[in-house]
Structure formats: C-alpha cells, structure tokens
C-alpha cells in the first residue's frame, strides 16, 4: 500500500457544494472513516460527518464511497483502488445539511406513523409467552437492521422519483415485516401497506439488498412476502368473491 492516499470529499451546504481534495497518510488496516478523521484533525477541522461506534453497529457513517453507498467505518482502504482519489460523498436520497451530513429526519417521522407492536395476551399466568426459536429466526434477521438508511439511499423510488410522501422505503418495509411476522403481534397493517406505506411502488430491483451492511435479504425475505400478503388480502379473486357473498 502506498504511504499516502488522496480523497475527494464533497463539501458545502445546500447552497453550494464542491469536491475538495485532501492527501493523508495511510496505515495498515485503515478504513475510510479513519482517513476522514485524520483529515478533520489535521486539515479540515469543520468537516461535517456523523459517526459513533466505528464498528459497523450503529449505522451513522453512511456515505457514498467511489459512488457506492457504504459505511465508512467498514470500508477498508486496502479494498479500494488508491492510485486515484477516493471520492466520498453524502447519501443522496435526503437533503444535504453540510459536507457528509444529511437531513435524515424524514425517516424518524415515517417510523412514528407505522402502527406499533401489539402483543397477544401472555400465554402463562406469570405474564410471559412461549415462543419457538424457529418462529423468530426470520424476525431476528429483520431486527439486525442498524438504520444506516443505505437501502433508502439506493431505492430509486426515493432517490430518483422522490416519492417520500407515498412510499416508506425498504428500511420501513423491513420494519413492518418484523412486526407483521412477529409471532406475538396481533395488529393488521395490510391496508396501510397497500395505501399509506405504498408497497406497490417497489418493483423489486433489489438494490436495497445489495447495499445492506447487515446482509438482510430485504427484498426476498421482507418485501416480497409482504407483497404476497397484500395481494392475498386485496386482489385474490376467490377471496374477493367470498367477501362479496358474505356481505
């Protein structure tokens, strides 16, 4: 590995952005976040970026590195071509605040609108439930989500088409799947999935699955089964007929 590497970091606010180039020493095992920190400490003290755990567990340091949405703390320089500058940009599906920090508050508003967990009454007198491990393996996969919002970033419904008012995005479809498939949950969110959550906008291009740092099979395990439930509920001709007859 060379001793120094160059980084092209997108800097600025909503009003004006431009790439600034920095050179910084590289040491063994270094990740992109280390480089950003070094640049911050030595050359650009007001360079804005978010980070917390630096171990891929909090999902704060999402960025686009050489155009690919990734966590800066889990991207090793050794895995990047260093003969040319490494470009580091903020995620694009949300408004820019400054440099690498974006306004992700929309995500927090969306989550609040999703119907919360509603458990069935406890199974036993001591107020507890009996749940089998095989019944929660899938839900546990969804609950690995660290809310880095990289899936939201690459989802073309949000990124290109800006359907933030009609579609909750892959992160929250995973969240809904985690609730819907929770063995204790009794709430019904199918009507919302179809309308307010806009699941129909997803045309399963699987971009979200590709970028998920937790390797959650977002499309196959969360979105498609939810789509099937919506179809069963609202578009199954036999079920529709039965419903009509009942009326």
């Amino acid at each position: 590995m060379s001793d120094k590497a160059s980084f092209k970091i997108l800097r600025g606010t909503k009003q004006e952005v431009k790439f600034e180039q920095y050179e910084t020493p590289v040491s063994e095992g270094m990740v992109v976040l280390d480089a950003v920190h070094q640049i911050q400490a030595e050359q650009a003290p007001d360079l804005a970026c978010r980070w917390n755990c630096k171990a891929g567990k909090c999902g704060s340091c999402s960025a686009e590195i050489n155009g690919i949405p990734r966590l800066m703390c889990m991207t090793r320089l050794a895995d990047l071509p260093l003969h040319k500058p490494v470009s580091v940009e903020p995620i694009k599906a949300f408004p820019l605040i400054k440099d690498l920090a974006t306004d992700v508050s929309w995500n927090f508003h969306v989550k609040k609108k999703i119907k919360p967990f509603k458990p069935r009454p406890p199974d036993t007198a001591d107020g507890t439930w009996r749940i089998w491990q095989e019944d929660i393996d899938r839900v546990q996969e969804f609950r690995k989500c660290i809310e880095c919002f990289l899936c939201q970033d690459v989802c073309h419904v949000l990124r290109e088409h800006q359907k933030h008012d009609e579609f909750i995005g892959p992160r929250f479809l995973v969240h809904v799947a985690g609730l819907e498939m929770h063995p204790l949950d009794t709430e019904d969110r199918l009507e919302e999935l179809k309308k307010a959550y806009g699941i129909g906008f997803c045309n399963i291009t699987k971009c979200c699955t590709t970028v998920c740092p937790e390797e959650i099979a977002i499309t196959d395990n969360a979105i498609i089964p939810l789509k099937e439930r919506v179809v069963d509920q609202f578009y199954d001709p036999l079920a529709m007929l039965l419903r009509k007859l009942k009326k």
Partner: protein
Amino acid sequence: MVDYQKFEYDVLVIGAGGAGLRAAIEASAGGASVGMICKCLLGKAHTVMAEGGIAAALGNVDDRDNWKVHFSDTMRGGQYVNNWRMAEIHAKEAPERVRELEAWGAVFDRTKDGRILQRNFGGHKYPRLVHVGDRTGLEMLRTLQDYGIHQGIEVHMECTVIRLLKDSDGSRVCGVVVYDREKGRFQVFQSKAVILATGGIGQAYEITSNSWDCTGDGHSLAYEAGAELIDMEFIQFHPTGMVWPPSVKGILVTEGVRGEGGILLNSEGRRFMFDEIPDNYKHQTADNPEEGWRYTQGDKEARRPPELLTRDHTARCIVREIKEGRGSPHGGVYLDIAWIKEKIANSEEHIKRKLPSMYHQFKQLAGIDITKEPMEVGPTTHYIMGGIHVDADSQMSNVPGLFACGECAAGINGANRLGGNSLSDLLVLGKRAGEYAAKFAGENSLDGLDEAQIEAAAEMALEPFGRNDDPQKGAENPYSIQSDLQKLMQHNVGIVRKEGEMQHALEELERLGERAGRVHVAGNREFNPGWHTALDLTHLLTISEAIARSALDRKESRGAHFREDFPEKNTDFGQCNHITVKGPDGKMRVHSKPIQEMPEELKAVIKEMG
C-alpha cells in the same frame, strides 16, 4: 443578549441510550411532559454496542438462580464497595424489566421449551444473560426506541447540553442550555426535573471501546452544578478488545466468546488463566479444561472456566502475559473459539449463529475467520463504575431536581462491574429515575430562569471562535489536545497505576487545561465537529482530573483499580467510597466517606450464597 429558542417540560432527559429512553418512558407513564435531548440521532447511542446480554435472574436455564445469587455475585464482583441497596433493587427488579421488554416487542433467543434463553458470563454463577446472539444492545435500544416514540416523548436530536441551570438561590436544577448541531443555535430547556443519562467517559483514553460521544458530559455537568461524584477511580478495562489492525484497536470483542467456550492462550499456547485464580473465586472455578468446557455447555455439576473470572482480573492476567513477553505479535494474547471444532460437529455454523457480529467484525476489519483461527485481543477502556452519586431508591443526586441513571450514575457496581449488569442496571434504575423524577416534577413548580447563567454559558461556548487563530502565537487545535489527553490518561492512569505517574498526569492535565483555553475553532457554527470537540474538552479535562485524584487517594488495589505501589487490598479503604466535589474555591476536592453498614438480612444472603 443571547438569542435562544425556549422549551418547557416537567421532566427533561439528557441522553437517549438505554437508560435515558427507559427513564423517559417511565416519566411519561407517570404523567409528566417529557423532553429528551440526544447528542446523536435517535437509536445510535452507545447502548447498541452492548453485545453479551442483560443480566437477570429469571432462572430459565438453571432454576437454582434467583435474586439472592445475583445480588451476591454483583457484590462479590464489586468487591463490596457497591451500594448494597442498589445491588439489591437491581437483582430483585431485573427479571420484571426484561419481561417488560418482551411485551414491548423485543425478540430474545429462546430455550428449547420456548422461554427466554440465558447464557454464561464472567462472575455470574449461573447462566443469567438474556441475549440475542451478540447484538443484545441493539435489540434493547431498538425496542425502547420503537416503544418510546409512541409514548408522547419529544425528542430533540443532535443537541448538546453545555450547562445545567440552577434556580435563583442556587439550590435546585431548573433547566439546561443546549446548542443544536445543525445550525449551532442556542436553546434553553426549562424543566422541573432533569435526568442525566449521558453514559461513559471512554474518550478520555486512547484505547477504548467507546464511541466519540462518550466524553463524560453528564459527570462533568453534574459536578459543575454541585453534585457529588463517587468512586471515579474505578474504570473497567475490558479484557478483550481488538488489537490489530491499528485503526480498530480497542473495538470490543464480546465476553460472549468466552461464554460460548472461547479460551485465552499466550504465545506458548498455554491457557494462562489457570495460572492464577483469586482465593475468593477458587471454590467456584474449574481446575481443569475439561470441567470448564462442560460448564460452558450447561453441565450444572461443573464449575466455570477461569476465562470467565471477573473482567478486572482477566485484564490484569492478559497484561501480565504481554509484559512478560508471552504476548501475540501485535501486543495482545490469543482468544480462540475455533478450537471447539474438537468438541462439536458443525462448529463453524454454531459460531456464526452464536457470535454473528464477531464473525463479521473480524472478517471485515481484520481479514480473520474466527471459526478457523484465533483472534488477537488486549484490554480496552470500557466502562466507568464511578459517577454521579445518587440515592439508591430514587436516583436523585444531592442537588434537588437532578437525577442520574445508567453509566453516568454510580453505586451499583462497586469496584468492578460484571458483564451484563449494565444493561439490567439501566433498565431497573433508569425506570426508577423516570418514576421519581416525574414524582418530583409533580410536587414542584417550574423555577424562574437566571438570564445571567444562560448568557455566561453561551459566551463560554462561543469563545473559541473569537480567539487568536495563529498557531505561531499559541493558537491550539482541539483535536490535538484531545489526542494528547487520551495518551496521557492511557499511560498514566490506566490499568496498572502508581503514584508518580498519576501525579505527573495531574500536572499535565493542568497544562492541557491552559492549552484548552487557547483553542481556536475554524469555520462557522453550523455542524462543526471542531467546535464540538472544543466543547467536549472541558468535560474530558474535568473527569480526567476526577479519575486521577480519586485514584491517587485510593492507596490499595481493589477491583478494576490496581496500584503497583499498593498491590493488596486494604480493609480501611474497603469500607469507604471516594467523593469528588467542586470546592467553594472552584478547586476539585476528594474525600472519603464510610460505607453504610449492610443490614443483617443482606449479610445473611451473602453468607448463604458462600
């Protein structure tokens, strides 16, 4: 006049980790209007990093477990300088707090009969840690977050408290001054009660498992407001942090690896943990590898392997091996879980299922497959047992209206915390803090704000922008001071301590304080990490001084505090806590305070448990 936006709440919670969220939920349930301030985005707090589990004596895996065993384990682990009342409350209430999490949607790993599964951990006599693989903290934080957002709590994200406000006669806390990260504007929150839940101090050290935000804000804000800090010398160095590559040094490797059968080896391939077993744990510890293995696999007749001795002891054994030249190539020792392939078929799958984040972490950051080869590990600054002195039942400090819970509060852990007790502590005592703060708010009215205090806080915060910016004329960069402070504390007030080094640290801290007075911040107030680092320095300097002074005064070795010049325990010191306060002259004072005698019934419990 300083410009600020104003908010009013009955109860204001500072910090949105596990403790803050649990407190906020309870305060809201108690009828209070609740505001919550967090330095980061919601759900990013350091609680997500907790891996191993929540300690609660549910007795699901071993029905011999109950609150009495948990209480005795906690006291033994803390070397009996714990607040026994807190340890009692904690052991009694933890199971209920865990069951509550399940009712709020948490999905814990299960036993074969469908109940909550529990795992072994250091210092716990029976399998006690409720967990989800090795990402328990995330599960807990997300559950509290997702439940909390529907409880009418108003969350103010990316806001940093710079000062606690006192009422006109200086007795009660009545609000806080905040700056918001995005725009750098000031905000004033007026409230009847304030709960500090700001977490730890790991960023005072060079090698740490802690996030950037663990800068001891709560400790320092409380100290400035006249609250007592207690036992600041007790800092836990987790025995197993990553040591290679350099950029990941300090990142935590969960104790769960050892709970699942992982063993510690030196460069000679020797399981060195068998070489020294403390007397008070001898009867509980296996004396051969076979028995140790059987324990990790649930054999009730077997005693625990020495790898699962308390963290203070394990960390020191590792340091001994490294110092005596039996360390690994990058200055650690080996932690091996891959060896279990000798014992179980399909061990690779088993390890990946039990320790998925560890597998991931080593694979991605170090290029090591832990199912096939050993990890290199060494001690990392992890947790502070000391902190804000609070009442055991109510979690209120000596300053009326000021409550604290979670890592920034102290008492329950004594000289050393058992793994898993922090997650249960923040649930149990966080809940109590919320409950009593809401009660306090119900009995008190909003106090008037003192504009002069607000003005002074804002002025202090903005000072670094106006200072001389020429390094030739002494202008300082906040990042270099922070890094110098971290090195100073690492080398002089670390795992092994002695008087001369700590004296040196105190002198150097004074010098760093002078340098901090010359910090210049470049750029403007909008989302400026340089400015933020400059403000953090005040807290880091205060808590570092408190740690060094307290450590200097404890002339014995106990739990996580090890003095090379006083290597033994001392009965007199074992009967007191160290209190740190700001003296009337503005200088820091440390004095000792006798520990209240334990009531007979608790003494009997400890005796009964051996």
